[in-house]
């Protein structure tokens, strides 16, 4: 959610009725109790409450036995499936090489079903019952909220895989000791907006995109992006001729395309990650007189071209990496191994799952243990080679604190185009130049 409206998780606890309270802002460094406001309603609260306090601790199972990684993702989609696959692959490789700190590594996979109620139960199960040493995944905004809520008690390290929300970063700034356990190796709303607009800035002139229309699916994650885009167009020569939010159940984009055409756009940029597939196919089949660029999550899958019978050719989209894109020497071997095991190239969370485990392992080796506080220190100081580039986290002085640094020297998303080669569809990266493995092809009807 954008940071103008609400911050999340527990920052606005109201006054209680007469009970002695402590102000919300008070920090305690005690491991177990927190100072929080109490609300006592007539209740049957009994001596079972005597169990208070012993849980939480420093998170994690202890000093011996297997090291447990708890991954949380929606298993009904490839987001969760690939997270599981990537995580497991990394774990298997570690276990083949003595594990972490000489201990075996175990995956505890939990299905979040993209439902915060379910995620709450699963997170509690992972941290309270199975006592995992680290949690990963998350993906969806409300699930991230659940994790931040739970982190207050569990103090378990979390290395997350997405969710545009910058609320966690705000929370860390507000209350470092409580929320410092949050890390994210994915983009957030801010870093992704910067990356996407950089593409527009670098490319508009050479492709003649003087008039650019932008459409946004009406979901919370892209509100920052819209603000940023709208104000950034004044920095470049291209003109933002249309800026439109459309409802998420839209399946027919003809009317919207008509509007884009009447605005005279040379290029349509679509922030259409969730709902964009019909937009792409309709654009292609109707051969609309503008280039279509944008984020469509489904288009990142290597199976997308076949799924839509090739009706996505010439569409430029975003991706963490294309198959065959050798960002580091780890990347392509990983892709090929994944393809071998799972019959298709990894999607986003496949990379993230793998990277997360390795980051955790590296931090553990540096710290010499799996104590959450020590792991936090290790991660804050980490600078290591990973699948998608150099992995380093923003520091406490940055608004994206504890998120992975996203720039051309670290991890940086690419723009690719679906092209046809020998009758099959391939994803060719066209930007940034140092990672590109293909060149832009103009759609025939635009020539």
């Amino acid at each position, binding site marked *: 959610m954008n940071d103008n409206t*609400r911050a999340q998780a527990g920052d*606005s606890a109201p006054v209680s009725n007469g009970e002695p309270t402590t102000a919300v802002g008070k920090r305690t460094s005690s491991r177990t109790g927190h100072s929080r406001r109490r*609300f006592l309603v007539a209740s*049957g609260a009994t001596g079972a409450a005597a169990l208070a*306090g012993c*849980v939480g601790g420093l998170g994690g199972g202890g000093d011996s036995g297997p090291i447990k990684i708890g991954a949380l993702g929606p298993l009904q989609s490839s987001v969760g499936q690939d997270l599981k696959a990537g995580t497991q692959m990394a774990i298997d490789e570690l276990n083949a090489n003595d594990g972490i700190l000489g201990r075996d590594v175990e995956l505890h996979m939990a299905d979040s079903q993209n439902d915060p109620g379910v995620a709450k139960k699963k997170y509690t199960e992972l941290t309270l019952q199975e006592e995992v040493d680290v949690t990963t995944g998350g993906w969806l905004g*409300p699930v991230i909220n659940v994790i931040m809520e739970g982190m207050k008690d569990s103090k378990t390290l979390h290395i997350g895989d997405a969710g545009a929300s910058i609320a966690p970063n705000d929370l860390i700034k507000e209350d470092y000791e409580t929320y410092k356990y949050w890390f994210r190796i994915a983009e957030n709303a801010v870093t992704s907006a910067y990356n996407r607009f950089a593409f527009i800035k670098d490319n508009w002139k050479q492709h003649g995109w003087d008039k650019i229309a932008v459409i946004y699916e009406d979901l919370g994650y892209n509100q920052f992006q819209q603000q940023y885009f709208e104000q950034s167009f004044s920095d470049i020569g291209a003109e933002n001729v249309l800026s439109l939010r459309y409802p998420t159940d839209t399946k027919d984009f003809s009317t919207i395309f008509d509007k884009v055409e009447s605005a005279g756009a040379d290029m349509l940029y679509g922030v259409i990650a969730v709902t964009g597939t019909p937009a792409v196919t309709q654009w292609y089949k109707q051969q609309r007189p503008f280039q279509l660029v944008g984020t469509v999550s489904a288009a990142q899958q290597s199976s997308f071209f076949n799924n839509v019978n090739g009706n996505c050719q010439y569409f430029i989209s975003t991706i963490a990496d294309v198959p065959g894109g050798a960002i580091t020497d780890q990347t392509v071997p990983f892709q090929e191994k994944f393809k071998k095991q799972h019959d298709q190239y990894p999607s986003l969370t496949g990379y993230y799952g793998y990277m997360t485990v390795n980051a955790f392992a590296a931090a553990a080796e540096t710290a010499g243990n799996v104590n959450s506080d020590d792991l936090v220190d290790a991660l804050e100081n980490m600078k290591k080679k990973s699948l998608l580039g150099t992995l380093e986290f923003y520091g406490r002085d940055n608004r994206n604190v504890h998120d992975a640094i996203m720039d051309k020297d670290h991890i940086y998303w690419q723009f690719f185009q679906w092209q046809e080669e020998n009758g099959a569809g391939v994803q060719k990266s066209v930007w940034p130049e140092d990672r590109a493995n293909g060149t832009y092809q103009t759609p025939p009807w635009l020539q």
Partner: protein
Amino acid sequence: MNDRLSTVRERIASDDGDGRLPNRRFVVGVLALLVLLALPVGTGPLFLLKMTGAFYFAIFAMSWDVVSGYTGNLSFGHSFIFAVGGYTAALLTLDAQLSPVVSVLVGVLAAIVAGLVIGFPALRLRGPYFAIVTFLLPSALTGLFVLYKGTFGGELGLPSPAYLLDMNGQVATITANYYLALFVFVAMFALLFAVTRSRIGEILTAIRENEDAVASSGINPVKYKLLAFELSAAVGGFGAALFVHTPIGGANPTQLLAVAVSINVLLATILGGIGTIVGPAIGGVVFYLLRDSLDSISWNIPVLGVSFSSLDLILFSIIILVVIYFIPDGIVGGVQQTARRLGGPDEESAMTDGGRSTLERILTRYRRDLEEDWGERNE
């Protein structure tokens, strides 16, 4: 008051004309309550968390039953009520900085108003039309929340408001919230049970069977139907307003507004037995826990290669299909029937309901309604 209480007592005592049966039911109920009270001793906080969710879900189901089981109008969008109650309360706690107790009370009021929104159209629309309108109301509300996502959080929902009960430490908080949920569950159950077994309940049942007959006997059915809607809204809104102030719940579309919520409530109540209050109480808890436990099974079905847990909705739907065909009274009703049969051959009590299940009676009335509307129809 005395009158109503004694009516309730008489009803309980004279149910089915057999002195033995109700005592048996009471004993079972009391035993169950004792087990639930002692639950934290034998189980861990995770299970308590799940039970808390189950109780609130059962409260939703009972609230649905008041409308769908007692006015005979099946509501396909009861999540509308839950969302109004829950979101109002959450917004007040978060933005207006009110105490959760106050927020909950205001949330109930808001839900009662929402009950009018559902209630008035219900008086004019017949069964299936009412069903479709109720189905669309949550969509409209979702659309509103997305339109004003700055205030309502859109599809992401609101952040978590402070808990009603917040102890030192996670386990204590979970345990305290469990008892709160149990208490509210029992209280709502008792309230609805008392109302539906009282004279009000008799009149509602009579209206469900034949509204014109009731009207012609001098009682205004509109008044009673509205009462049912308001009661349903109050209970549902109360449950939702509390729910968002617990560790297991929050004010977001997935938990309060989604179509799945309305459908699950319907499924659970039919499973347990519609029009009984006991049905949704037990059915709600069972449905919730069963789905949750199915979720944790990591067995893979060999041929299809899909995990068993992802089939749980399909499985449940099949089970309920079977129930509808063979045990239209729902599981609770089915158990009662079996108990009745096992109770001995000398039970010669007159069946005031004509021996047919509530579900059958509701739908027969619909047939009659439709016939009135559409003229002579298929006999």
